[in-house]
């Protein structure tokens, strides 16, 4: 079974402060991890994936297999970062070549001016 846990439902920070959105996962195989974001009145969209190791909009996330974590970080939060963030894990469906994308519960980030 694959599971994604985001322990914080709500996270509030002030503009310019560092922000870290926590994500832990459970999966027996080699996971692919993603962060998706949903801004107000917009559709859910991919923010970044661990395999690309890139920084998007100042956000980075490092896969830590020892701690089974994939926390999302940004050193200086901006007001436009306020959104719902979902951590997601892609795991192979046993006996097939298909995968399943499982989402965490989501974290609502609010960045105050």
């Amino acid at each position, binding site marked *: 079974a694959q599971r994604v846990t985001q322990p914080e439902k709500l996270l509030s920070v002030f503009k310019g402060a560092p922000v870290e959105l926590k994500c832990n996962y459970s999966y027996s195989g080699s996971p692919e991890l993603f962060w998706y974001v949903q801004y107000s009145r917009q559709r859910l969209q991919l923010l970044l994936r661990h395999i690309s190791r890139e920084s998007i909009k100042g956000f980075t996330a490092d896969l830590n297999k020892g701690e089974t974590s994939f926390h999302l970080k940004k050193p200086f939060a901006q007001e436009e970062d306020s959104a719902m963030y979902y951590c997601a894990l892609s795991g192979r469906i046993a006996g097939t*070549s298909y995968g399943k994308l499982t989402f965490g519960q989501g974290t609502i980030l609010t960045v105050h001016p």
Partner: protein
Amino acid sequence: DTAVSQTPKYLVTQMGNDKSIKCEQNLGHDTMYWYKQDSKKFLKIMFSYNNKELIINETVPNRFSPKSPDKAHLNLHINSLELGDSAVYFCASSQEGTGNTEAFFGQGTRLTVV
């Protein structure tokens, strides 16, 4: 150009009714999905189809029946609607079904059962 489009955007209906939500993608993707987002914003997969073939059926009541007439369309039909079916339903698509490629989402359909 809207990549993944769902209709309707809002749906209010009475208990016991049957309703359908339509989804179309113009990205040429092979795989399409339905997700349910409940009142606590928890996003859970319901179904996935790859080239019109059902791949994932995630213990969803059989009142829910997906239909994929072609790989660009995945419709969701719900029979005998219940209060607990009230949620936002998201359609999504991806290039292939391994789960390792980006999923593109529709804008969601907010279903309210009264």
